[in-house]
């Protein structure tokens, strides 16, 4: 099992510590050495070298931005900035109507209420392509959804509903990994039944009188699902992180959090008052160096030892599509005696042969992870979050978590939806529906990623992650891609700066088990068409045909 291989690695390394080479050079004691030579063309594209810890190939690729594309992207942002300044000037001199909040004339001499420059980006860039976000959906967000059609008479400053509904738009943006976002079937019937029995609202917090027997049943089920001793559920996924990390760490503790951690983890870490140090995304050498520095030097001024060191990582990072290197993190945590907080918001139900998340995907022991957190929003079609771990930990959280004391507990129909869908995934409802969906999801993921790769797009992330970011790079293409896809009846999510680094704007697809092969093919054909139209096929690897510029040269040589 991987536990033995991890301990083998640690023991082997311990004996290596004592040796010094003949010329007095002491080998570094680090578990994971920095590699001397990195191929400059790609970062992180390698099957893991510490193959003792991994039971399968770990292939992640983040192809680097082509230089020409980067230069054109900066040019695009430069032109937008110049036009932004021009438009601001016109608005200031009243040549153009100003749609924004302005101070009253009488208050012009006061200290300014609005910071003009901080809204520059919103006014001049975001407003131009605002119709790609906040689109109202008027059906269940399953594999296909209905969108309300909007038109804008004044370039996205205001929207009007035409009254028409765009039907059956293929949904490539919802976190619907196992397809449980549906309004018919066993889950929906069970949820409706429990609404009839319990009502919809709970009207209290967990500690007062909002602790339903359904919550207890769900917590036992979640604990069995994850393979941990005990678990606790909360009404909101974001609040699970932001309300529980302060209960676990405090002043004098150290939180080592990944660069690309979600806002809820960042907020929870800040609220706790611990020292936060950020290590490079999924980079085990960076994490190890930080752990060593922390243990050797202790707290900043006093050099006292840290009370606790908590490593906070996510299972799947939703913007990059990368999977955490969990075996290496666990090996490090055991060596340096730190605690591990694993946020499986996107990976629970979506990874692993039995759907138990990233721990199942790597074949590790759940008791190695101290705190397993996850959300029910993504794969279970409900809302809320959970934390699983040892019984003492969960009992402590029941008393000390802000969410338990102050926040309303989970609503009964949602609780029932999670119970039914979790039983379905585990196979406890007597059907093989769960297994089929898991298999369908992993097939869809592999197919979708392979086809996009063959078409020549730059895709980030691990080959097994159902989150597929497709790189767009240029600011104009963000808006163009979203609109063109909607014209072809496909709903996508696009993200730009400052949510991503300045040149790495992307479109993010979420593959679902509810997508049939035909839907994926339709989507892929549309993506390919839009990719040709907008020239998005930047990839230099695995091209299906010859690159077009070479064939141009060849055809003109004779």
């Amino acid at each position, binding site marked *: 099992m991987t536990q033995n291989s991890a301990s083998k690695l640690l023991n082997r390394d311990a004996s290596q510590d004592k040796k010094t080479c003949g010329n007095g050079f002491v080998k570094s004691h680090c578990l994971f050495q920095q590699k001397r030579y990195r191929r400059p063309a790609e970062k992180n594209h390698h099957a893991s070298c510490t193959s003792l810890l991994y039971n399968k190939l770990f292939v992640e690729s983040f192809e680097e931005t082509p*230089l020409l594309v980067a230069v054109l992207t*900066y040019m695009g942002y430069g032109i937008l900035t110049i036009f932004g300044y021009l438009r601001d000037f016109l608005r200031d001199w009243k040549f153009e109507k100003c749609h924004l909040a302005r101070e009253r004339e009488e208050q012009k001499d006061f200290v300014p209420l609005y910071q003009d420059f901080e809204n*520059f980006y919103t006014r001049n860039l975001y407003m131009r392509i605002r119709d790609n976000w906040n689109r109202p959906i008027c059906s269940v967000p399953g594999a296909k959804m209905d969108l309300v059609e909007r038109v804008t008479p004044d370039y996205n400053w205001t929207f009007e509903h035409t009254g028409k509904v765009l039907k059956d738009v293929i949904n490539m943006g919802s976190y619907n990994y196992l397809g449980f976002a549906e309004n018919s079937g066993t889950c929906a019937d069970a949820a409706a039944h429990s609404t009839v029995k319990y009502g919809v609202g709970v009207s209290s917090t967990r500690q007062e009188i909002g602790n339903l027997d359904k919550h207890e049943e769900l917590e036992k089920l979640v604990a069995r699902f994850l393979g941990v001793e005990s678990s606790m559920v909360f009404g909101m996924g974001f609040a699970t992180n932001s309300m529980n990390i302060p209960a676990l760490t405090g002043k004098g503790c150290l939180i080592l959090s990944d*660069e690309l*951690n979600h*806002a809820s983890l960042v907020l929870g870490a800040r609220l706790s008052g611990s020292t936060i140090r950020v290590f490079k995304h999924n980079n085990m050498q960076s994490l190890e160096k930080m752990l060593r520095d922390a243990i050797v030097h202790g707290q900043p001024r006093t050099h006292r030892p840290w009370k606790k060191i908590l490593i906070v990582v996510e299972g799947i990072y939703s913007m990059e599509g990368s999977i955490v290197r969990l075996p290496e993190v666990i090996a490090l945590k055991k060596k340096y005696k730190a605690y591990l907080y694993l946020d499986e918001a996107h990976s629970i139900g979506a990874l692993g042969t039995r759907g138990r998340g990233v721990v199942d995907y790597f074949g590790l022991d759940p008791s190695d992870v101290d705190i397993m957190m996850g959300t029910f929003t993504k794969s279970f079609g409900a809302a809320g979050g959970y934390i699983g771990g040892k019984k003492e930990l969960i009992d402590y959280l029941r008393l000390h978590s802000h969410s338990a004391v102050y926040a309303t507990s989970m609503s009964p129909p949602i609780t029932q939806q999670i119970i039914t869908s979790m039983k379905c995934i585990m196979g406890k409802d007597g059907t093989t529906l769960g297994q089929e969906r898991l298999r369908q999801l992993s097939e869809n993921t592999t197919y979708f990623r392979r086809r996009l790769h063959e078409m020549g797009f730059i895709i980030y992330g691990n080959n097994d992650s159902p989150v597929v970011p497709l790189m767009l790079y240029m600011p104009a293409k963000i808006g163009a891609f979203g609109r063109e896809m909607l014209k072809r009846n496909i709903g996508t999510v696009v*993200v730009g700066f400052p949510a*991503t*680094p*300045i040149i790495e704007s992307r479109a993010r697809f979420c593959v679902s088990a509810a997508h049939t092969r035909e839907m994926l093919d339709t989507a892929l054909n549309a993506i390919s068409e839009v990719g040709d139209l907008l020239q998005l096929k930047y990839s230099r690897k695995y091209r299906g045909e010859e690159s077009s510029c070479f064939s141009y040269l060849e055809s003109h040589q004779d």
Partner: protein
Amino acid sequence: MNVGTAHSEVNPNTRVMNSRGIWLSYVLGIGLLHIILLSIPFVSVPVVWTLTNLIHNMCMYIFLHTVKGTPFETPDQGKARLLTHWEQMDYGVQFTASRKFLTITPIILYFLTSFYTKYDRVHFVINTISLLTVLIPKLPQFHGVRLFGINKY
């Protein structure tokens, strides 16, 4: 807090000058400016070089040392609102690679300009004053310094 963002970077402005391809874009931008000025028919080559130097230094002064804050809202509660882009770069850490690059480029442009103006006295005075306006704010001693209260708020 970084709601809606995909990273825990508090101020993305600090990383812009380290991004891939921006140094190249900057050099290409200077080249483009120079070619545009060269294509004006009635100006001589020394005047074009002096103009390139002046316009480059003026733009650099405006964008790096005059404009303050960020064009987007940051979750750092306004720590960067009174800082120019130069002061925000790399969170104020001095002598990083980008800072060195942006210090050396005006100096190289100055050398080229001095050569192509044949070290004429008038051009020399103008170019040197222009270089000083762009080099002095980059000194570490001038981090956060506002002379005579200019550009303070």
